[in-house]
């Protein structure tokens, strides 16, 4: 069992596509929540393989993309502090803030380091006791537990030079916000895969129960996605609205207790600002008071700068699923992965990047 090849089996895939074609009668509109889903759908050309009555929209499930300009500005400001070392995950360094990016700050002499794990950031802090090591924490429930673990460890070790700028966001509240806004007229949602491994399936049950919309948790391989789409189509055809799990090899109903516990111990739920969507209640995570000394927001006097966004960039509408990258007049002209205007073009999981790299002929 290699856990990848099996879920790309072309023969099984073609059978699923045939089954989908025979089951699907009604027009339906689905949203894939995760950027990882979008990338897989584009990369494997899945949209072309679905019947024409099925429409797929991309959702806001890309942590880099939903980070608002003002938060990027904070990170850039912190990078400019004497003695600061900024550590963060790869994509973050290229996201444009109002005036700069972490990458540009690095070029101008700031110490910005890409890490793969918060453990690496902790190690940097241990080795540089005279510096302030600030981890810019982005990500959903998938990454938050590891950041929480680093905070708890730094606290236990008495490390006084490790800080976290918590930009973490939660997925169920944003799905609720999108559904409440009623902009999309959705029939179904492909729910997060890796996030659900942590949260479990339960937090997504409200989609069917309260909004009468079908929901299926899906993995990221082409067969995972085709299976999830088939399950959504069957629900639509049969008039059912419930949460189903097409990713049981990873996602359990109760989720990962340990990860949830540590997240809950270190963070508390807070309002959070989402790019293109605005402040959504109970959709973010901030450090609890016990860990206040490690909170970069509290430890540093972060200067507010006037937030400026490129007025032509429609990342916000793309994240809400209201528009597609090809609707943007900057797409591929001014904005490309080498010169990204908005975060959806920066992140490997961003819709614009996925459409740019893997888009079909109609988007050229």
């Amino acid at each position, binding site marked *: 069992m290699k856990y990848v090849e099996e879920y790309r089996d072309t023969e099984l895939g073609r059978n699923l596509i045939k089954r989908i074609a025979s089951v699907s009668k009604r027009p339906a509109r689905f949203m894939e929540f995760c950027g990882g889903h979008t990338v897989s759908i584009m*990369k494997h050309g899945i949209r072309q393989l679905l019947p024409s009555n099925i429409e797929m929209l991309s959702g806001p499930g890309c942590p880099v993309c939903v980070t608002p300009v003002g938060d990027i500005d904070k990170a850039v400001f912190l990078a400019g502090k004497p003695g600061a070392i900024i550590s963060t995950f790869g994509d973050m360094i290229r996201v444009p803030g109002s005036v700069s990016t972490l990458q540009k700050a690095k070029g101008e002499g700031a110490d910005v380091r890409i890490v*793969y794990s918060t453990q690496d950031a902790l190690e940097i802090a241990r080795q540089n006791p005279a510096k302030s090591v600030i981890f810019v924490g982005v990500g959903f429930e998938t990454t938050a537990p590891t950041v929480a673990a680093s905070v708890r460890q730094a606290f236990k070790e008495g490390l006084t030079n490790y800080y976290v700028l918590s930009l973490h966001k939660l997925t169920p509240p944003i799905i609720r916000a999108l559904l409440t806004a009623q902009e999309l007229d959705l029939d179904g949602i492909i729910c997060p895969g890796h996030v659900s491994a942590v949260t479990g399936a339960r937090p997504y049950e409200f989609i069917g129960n309260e909004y009468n919309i079908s929901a299926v948790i899906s993995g990221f391989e082409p067969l995972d996605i085709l299976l999830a789409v088939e399950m959504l189509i069957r629900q639509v055809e049969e008039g059912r609205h419930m949460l189903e799990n097409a990713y049981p090899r990873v996602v359990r109903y109760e989720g990962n207790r340990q990860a949830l516990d540590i997240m809950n111990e270190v963070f508390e739920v807070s309002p959070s600002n989402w790019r293109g969507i605005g402040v959504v209640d109970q959709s973010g995570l901030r450090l609890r008071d016990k860990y206040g000394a490690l909170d970069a927001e509290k430890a540093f006097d972060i200067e507010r700068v006037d937030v400026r966004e490129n007025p032509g960039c429609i990342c916000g509408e793309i994240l809400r699923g209201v528009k597609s990258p090809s609707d943007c007049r900057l797409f591929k002209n001014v904005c490309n992965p080498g010169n990204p205007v908005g975060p959806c073009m920066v992140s490997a999981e961003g819709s614009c990047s996925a459409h740019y*790299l893997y888009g079909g002929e109609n988007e050229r």
Partner: protein
Amino acid sequence: MNDKVLLAHGSGGRLSHDLIEKYFMPRLDNPILNRLDDSAVLEMKGRIAFTTDSYIIKPVFFPGGDIGRLAVCGTINDLSTSGAVPKYLSLGLIIEEGLPIADLEDIMASVSETAKEAGVFVVTGDTKVVDHGSADGIFINTSGIGIIPEDIDISGANAKDGDKVIISGTIGDHGITVMAQREGLKFTVPVESDCAPLNGLVSDILKVSANIHCLRDPTRGGLATTLIELASQSGVGIQIYEDKIPVRDAVRGMCEILGFDPLYIANEGKMVIIAGPEDADIIIDILRKNRYGGDAAVIGEVTSQQKGRVVLKTGLGSSRIVDMPAGDLLPRIC
């Protein structure tokens, strides 16, 4: 002798001579270099291919090779893509003060072994030493000269409708190896750089086929970028099949973890060959007999549609256009 390279080693004085006498001459020994004149004098007839490239790699030593082997292979392979028989190399070293002499010895040993393997001579060279912090360990520049046999006409502009597209082996090995080292990943990746001189392999296939139209080594930017360049230069379309492109499990796995696409990952010992369809079988046959061509495969064909573009057919039967990568490859978040 000090065990580190000092600024004085690049001064032109006694230490410079020591360096050359002790570490370079015994390794590179050949009649042209041994004259120690300021320029090498070469006797050559016919069409000459000439190329240059600079090598900067971190880490300098990696599984499957080092900067020395890389610098020799890269230039040999660039010469080979025009069908030339590589003959002579120059070797320019820019060394950061403080490089352990033992490292320099190892690098020179690789240069020497690789040059011998490929049957080329390093005929001229230069060494400079710069202050600590002004370089990163060692940078190498190599230029190379080769002779193009009379009836050979190979160019990126020569691909024709109906030609077959061949890759000489698995893709992404070098890039993934170096990335795994560089990023300090806390797990081992069972893959080595494919860094290799391909002049032997190219000469083997040129012996059996007069219908080889394009040769190119898919280094930075990977297979995708090379194919796009060839499609555009020849004014043709290229169609490739996802499930025919050879990729090692370890490379595929690493790409999954880091969010990369093997199509865009660098290779240092692979050749893309575009040839008339009638010769595809014999070329594959000959490639597979070469030590660097064991996994060679036909991965697609040249078409008259979608000129200047590369279209990839997925295993599921959909197709998508393969675009140039833009910017650096960065690992993903979740």
